[in-house]
């Protein structure tokens, strides 16, 4: 898909449709959609500065154990996983409105990994079925 707004919207629809076919629970579908949206928004916003156009490739694989989403783009090198963990602000006055996309991806995917290969960014996100809430420190 093109690395621009309409590509972002098409991707979300495509993954939502695949999620329905893969019979994801509403919670898992929410997590996948959230992470995909944040990953794509990052690429569209930061990956192609200066009016460059680019492409984003997506692959989605689901089986009984879980699912894997791979997002590939040919934009500037950017490893979202290299960003330091962000401390939550204690006061509203100190809160920065932006920069929440990567923390959300880290929390809502069961694993996130990045590699730069053949001049492309490759972000791999995985989820295990039935694992919602685990590995995030907020399980009951």
């Amino acid at each position, binding site marked *: 898909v093109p690395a621009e707004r309409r590509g*972002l919207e098409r991707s979300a629809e495509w993954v939502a449709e695949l999620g329905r076919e893969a019979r994801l629970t509403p919670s898992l579908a929410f997590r996948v959609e959230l992470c995909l*949206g944040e990953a794509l928004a990052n690429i569209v916003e930061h990956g192609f500065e200066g009016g460059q156009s680019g492409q984003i490739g997506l692959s989605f694989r689901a089986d009984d154990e879980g699912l894997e989403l791979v997002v590939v783009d040919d934009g500037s090198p950017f490893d979202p996983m290299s960003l330091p963990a962000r401390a939550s602000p204690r006061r509203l006055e100190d809160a920065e*409105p932006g920069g929440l996309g990567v923390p959300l991806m880290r929390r809502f995917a069961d694993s996130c990994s990045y590699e730069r290969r053949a001049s492309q960014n490759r972000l791999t996100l995985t989820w295990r079925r039935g694992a919602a809430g685990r590995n995030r420190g*907020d399980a009951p």
Partner: protein
Amino acid sequence: MTIGSRELEDGIIRIDLAGRMDIAGTEQVDLRFSGITSTVKRGAVVDMSAVSFLASIGIRTLITNAKSLKLRGVSLVLVRPSPLVAEVLRSVGIHDIIPIFEDLESAVAAIKAAPRAAD
């Protein structure tokens, strides 16, 4: 995404958000949201119960409006987010800076208990 508002009592405005607070949805309500909050005198209660999806762009709008109200000494609180939307908010610590309530009555009571901004 849709947004509506009405005065509950004594300068306290209820803002009803409905739909998906993703990029497209947030853009649909962003201007109106700031327009409404700019007129709030005592407090804003944002009813999140009909928000089915929340992305970082939506959180950005909530923080921006809460901060601009805070500068005027006015509170913004959230009420009744769905479990998944609440998980998004908590996961990035929003509950520490913007109070979240289970019901409207508690939200209104908290606003009324807060010191009034100097007129």
